């Protein structure tokens, strides 16, 4: 405990005037007064005062408290065996690598997929007409979703040989230049030939 001069103590108690102090005692007296003022300005630090402060503060709603909980930092500790971590990593990798299969058609044993691709920049419509549609237009319409001039269609067809031609803009009959197999159509042009293979799933 700090020792205070008895005469200084009496001045602090108001028993003596401060004029009776020596210069060094006056300096100590001034220091003590500054300290007293600082203490007087400081907020209440007692437990009771802090509790009362909290009690007086308005209570937050459930939503506000949840939002505060969401935005505050929390320390989360997960204990996982390394074998499970590796299994999780493998599963995530498989999901990323294996292509997703859409709800495609279920194929019979005597059915396969025919893919038609043609480059027709500027075309408004492209379709395939052939023996598999009884040469009836409008059944197999190709699409160019990215507007790069490459038109595509995938169709389920019976296994075997089929003849076809592209019909561009509903009027121009064009032989598929990529077919590789052709047969005279008997009308002065050539039909392309496609052999559909079984693709049972």
């Amino acid at each position, binding site marked *: 405990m700090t020792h205070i001069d008895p005469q200084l103590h009496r001045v602090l108690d108001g028993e003596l005037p401060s004029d009776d102090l020596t210069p060094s005692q006056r300096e100590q007296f001034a220091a003590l007064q500054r300290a007293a003022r600082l203490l007087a300005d400081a907020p209440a630090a007692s437990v009771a005062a802090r509790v009362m402060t909290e009690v007086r503060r308005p209570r937050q709603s459930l939503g506000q408290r949840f939002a505060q909980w969401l935005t505050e930092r929390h320390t989360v500790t997960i204990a996982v065996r390394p074998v499970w971590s590796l299994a999780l990593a493998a599963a995530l990798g498989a999901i990323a690598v294996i292509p997703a299969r859409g709800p495609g058609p279920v194929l019979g044993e005597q059915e396969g997929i025919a893919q038609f691709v043609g480059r027709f920049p500027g075309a408004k419509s492209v379709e395939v007409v052939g023996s598999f549609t009884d040469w009836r237009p409008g059944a197999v319409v190709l699409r160019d979703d990215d507007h790069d001039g490459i038109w595509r269609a995938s169709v389920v067809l019976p296994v075997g040989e089929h003849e076809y031609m592209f019909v561009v803009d509903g009027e121009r009959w064009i032989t598929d230049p990529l077919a590789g197999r052709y*047969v005279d159509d008997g009308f002065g042009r050539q039909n392309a030939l496609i*052999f559909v293979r079984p693709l049972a799933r």
Partner: protein
Amino acid sequence: MTAGRLVACLLAAASPLVAQGSFARLAGRVPAPALRAIDSILVAARREGLPTEPLIEKAFEGGAKGVAPDKIVLAVGTSADQLRSARALLREAGETQPTDPAEVTAVAAALSRGLSPELVGQLTAVLPGEPTGPALHAVADLVGHRFAEDSSVDLIVAAAQAGLRGLRFLDVAAAAVQDLQRGQSHAAALAHVHSLLPNVPPPPRPAPAAVSRARRLQPGSERP
């Protein structure tokens, strides 16, 4: 009444109905001036026991392509002649039942691709009682890429002797054509594929995305 006479009576009774059905199918899809001539070709083909579906298809094709009526009639008549030639070839090759419509149609298709009757007869003799369509088209593929006819037939016959059948013949032709496109000579390509037999590479399967995108034809657009 014997069973044979009963069948003959039924066929005679059904024939006009079948003919009427063909006429109804053609009407509206084939120019009216060509209808009667095409119908008479169909009646004759039916009487001879030839498959008529390829002839009806040819008429549909001509109608869809906007071909003049007389040219449609000509093309249908030519198709009927090819079917007759095909059936004759199959009979010469010793087919016990040359009236199998699918086989007659396959051989006729090979003839229309430009294969000579001699070559077709040679191949059908190698594959007695088996579907010859893919083998014929494999040879036609090779000939279409300027392989010699004899060498093309030899390769497909060798593939058959190595145990390949059906659409695998087309893989043999495709392998030779691929070698050609990689810069090999015709002789080198044939020799290479011959050395691979019977393990020629199969064609790539369609990508899963293409399979999942595939759609069936709408009802009414398919062959009835």
